[in-house]
């Protein structure tokens, strides 16, 4: 049986993994390669790296870091941030990443999803989205897409955008709730579930994981295929193995040997 994936997310700033709440109060957590190895050895099913300052600073992604991670771990990983064109995607893939996550870039230029899927296969192209609860009349789902680290509102409906991105060729969609991000109070089940039911590609829940039961809930109630964890594991509050023990005990299909 295909198992539900647990994916630690590593936000990288100036070559170090950091964690903040709603993009503020960042603290240094460690070296990206060391942390990748530790999570891989500890049972993570996949990893995701966001070069979080790349877009804001207008500089390209740290290819040396991608190469070092690819040499050090034998599990899949995605890279996002600082991607601005197909040749950026190619560099990241040739460096050894399995997947590229596009977010603000795809909002600005949706064709990049189709072009990336055509060039590398749709399984390589992940759409990251940052929806926030909104009463914007253009957003009938009640959730609006934000970009640039929650700084800009786009007027785009979150469910419509997910469907369009899947049609364009996105192989997976990461739903990162702005409202839940960094709170450790649980995933945003409503928008995650609505998107999971609206598209036929895997949906990854992101934002709000604080304890193992939150993952069980998002898998059972929102039909997520994978869930991202950050603060709850980075701080040492929980290990991946502890999270997976709870998932397994609750009957969620989980990879238990690694």
């Amino acid at each position, binding site marked *: *049986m*295909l*198992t*539900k*994936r647990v994916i630690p997310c590593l936000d990288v700033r100036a070559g170090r993994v950091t964690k903040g709440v709603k993009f503020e109060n960042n603290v240094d957590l460690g070296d990206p390669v060391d942390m990748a190895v530790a999570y*891989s050895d500890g049972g993570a*099913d996949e990893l995701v790296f966001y070069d979080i300052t790349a877009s804001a600073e207008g500089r390209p992604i740290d290819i040396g870091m991608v190469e070092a991670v*690819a*040499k050090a771990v*034998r*599990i*899949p990983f995605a890279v996002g941030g600082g991607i601005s064109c197909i040749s950026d995607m190619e560099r990241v*893939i*040739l*460096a*050894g990443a*399995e997947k590229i996550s596009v977010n603000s870039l795809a909002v600005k230029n949706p064709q990049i999803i189709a072009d990336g899927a055509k060039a*590398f*296969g*749709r*399984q*390589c192209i992940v759409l990251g989205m940052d929806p926030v609860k909104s009463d914007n009349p253009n957003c009938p789902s009640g959730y609006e897409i934000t970009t640039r680290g929650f700084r800009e509102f786009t007027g785009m409906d979150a469910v419509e955008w997910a469907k369009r991105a899947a049609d364009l060729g996105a*192989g*997976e969609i990461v739903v990162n709730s702005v409202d839940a991000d960094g709170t450790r109070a649980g995933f945003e089940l409503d928008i995650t579930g609505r998107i999971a039911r609206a598209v*036929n*590609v*895997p*949906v990854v829940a992101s934002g709000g994981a604080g304890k193992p039961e939150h993952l069980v809930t998002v898998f059972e109630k929102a*039909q997520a*295929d*994978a869930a991202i964890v950050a603060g709850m594991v980075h701080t040492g509050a929980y290990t991946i193995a502890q999270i997976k023990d709870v998932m397994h005990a609750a009957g969620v299909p989980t*990879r238990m*040997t*690694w």
Partner: protein
Amino acid sequence: MLAIVDYKAGNLTSVRNAFAALGVETAVTRDPAVLAAADRVVFPGVGAAGSAMANLRALGLEDAVRTAAGSGRPFLGICLGMQILFSHSEEDGGVDTLGILGGQVRRFPDVPGFKVPAIGWNSVDGPCAGREFYFVHSYYAELVPETVGRTEYAGTTFTAMVKKGRLWACQFHPEKSGRVGLELLKEWLAC
């Protein structure tokens, strides 16, 4: 020498890195003469069957790969590199593939709750029983006499791994399947 076939079908870095982790040097090649001389051939692949076959032909590699796969020397197909060893794929409107194995490659059926592509870790029965490997695919190869490992998704039981002498091939990615993936590569290196 271990040759990895480079036919513009996706990323070879992960495959090289996995063999490097086992201390094995690899040569990435598009040269039929190098494939003919190699002790072992790895035939990876990510992407679509139609463009993969077109690339193999355009690069003049189709015969070299067919010969290597039928040579009795150790040969390892991975993912799309396994699928195009079969005779036909439904992908890209239907395409005849290498035909080293007799079966067909089909798209997963639309079943509510089963996303396509299937992405993630799934268990394989047979000699791999109890081990989970990393899969990424929208198409699957049917069961054939050479099937030694089966996996299930979307109500469909399909070929996860085949063995035909020293030709091994797997739908999953051993190079991305952690310790169990490396163990499988080690077993192949010893065959």
